[in-house]
């Protein structure tokens, strides 16, 4: 009979409507902004710079290598390197950014800057309620607003932050071991130079030079 298809469809729609009162799954709308949906951990919105410790500017991990600026697809990052250097967490002298601007109105949240950063310093924040009425420059974010503490990063992306901290700890340990080995090698070389040189005459028996300073014992 003509019309049975439509009738069946209407019965189904009615069932759907009535079941919204009984089944929570059928009613997928939540009342934003009173209720907010919890976002998954991997959710990414806009970039932020991480700093360690208390001081925002002194603890910034960024070394102004400008790799993120080059790789950013819409070219929304603008970096100016500083003229002087300072010591980073590994104990090496690095530059730091004098200017670090990101234009959030251009940024497309692709996360490529995070992937290519070799220093674990730029990460994705999860804040998206950033609307501003100022069209020109309202979403141009500077270093001060971009800097967020490591604690904040650990709160919003726990597993990622744990992996990042672990990677940094490994790098730090490697750098420390290298620095120690360098220091020992240097001390040895200095000691060898400080000891008296053997005489130039070919007949004289070669004397093993006595080190002026006792060689440091290797801990291994």
């Amino acid at each position: 009979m003509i019309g049975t298809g439509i009738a069946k469809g209407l019965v189904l729609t009615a069932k759907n409507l009535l079941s919204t009162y009984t089944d929570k799954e059928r009613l997928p709308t939540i009342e934003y902004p009173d209720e907010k949906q919890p976002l998954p951990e991997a959710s990414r919105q806009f970039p932020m710079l991480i700093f360690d410790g208390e001081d925002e500017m002194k603890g910034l991990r960024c070394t102004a290598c400008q790799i993120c600026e080059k790789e950013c697809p819409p070219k929304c990052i603008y970096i100016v390197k500083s003229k002087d250097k300072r010591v980073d967490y590994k104990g090496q002298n690095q530059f730091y950014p004098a200017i670090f601007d990101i234009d959030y109105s251009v940024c497309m949240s692709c996360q490529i800057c995070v992937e290519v950063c070799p220093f674990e310093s730029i990460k994705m924040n999860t804040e998206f309620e950033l609307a501003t009425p100022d069209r020109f420059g309202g979403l141009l974010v500077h270093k001060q607003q971009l800097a967020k503490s490591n604690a904040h990063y650990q709160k919003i992306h726990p597993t990622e932050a744990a992996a990042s901290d672990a990677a940094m700890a490994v790098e730090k340990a490697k750098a420390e071991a290298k620095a120690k080995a360098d220091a020992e090698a240097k001390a040895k070389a200095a000691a060898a130079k400080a000891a008296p040189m053997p005489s130039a005459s070919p007949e004289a028996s070669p004397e093993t030079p006595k080190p002026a300073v006792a060689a440091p014992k290797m801990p291994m």
Partner: protein
Amino acid sequence: MPIPNPEELKTRLEAALPGVRVEVFPNPAVPAQSSLLIAPAEAVAVAKFLQDEPQLRLDMCSNVTGVDWPDREEKVKVKQLVDGVEKEVEEVRRHPGCLEAVYHLYSVALKQGPVILRQRTANRTDDTAVASLTPVWRGCEFQEREAYDLFGIRFTGHPDLRRILMWDEFKDHPMRKDYVEPDDYEYEPTPHDEVLDRAKAHYPAPEVKA
């Protein structure tokens, strides 16, 4: 996919269509996707052969691409006799540029492919005509229009050659390597000052908060 390799295709084409000029264009990265360079005058005949030959049956033209090869100069060190002494002299070789249309052909009936054809224009300035393969494969219609729009390659024999992505009154061809973009962008305060400076010439700069 038992499609013959490009050298074999070349011999088959030369046997079937006497006098045809076919050149194999090797592909160092993916040798299975090497292409055949054909002359525009014989392109339709070659295409019809490839479509009708019972072992090939290439009945779908999957992709038509325009490529711009600008004029380039190559500095080559050549051994030359200068004043009776053999010396290495740097010679500048000029390679004239051209525009190119690359066709990727597949067979739906026999589920094989791809066979890649290339057609080159004589130069980039005045003689930019190649043969259109739309009479053979209908799928080339919009794609050849796009190659015309973005590169300037004229396809002779195309039923409706006009711009497709840019508007009809647009001049110039955007995908060419020497295309200069117009600088009157809508004002956008990105941190990159060249865009800002070029835009300032067309719009008054509004107040930007520090």
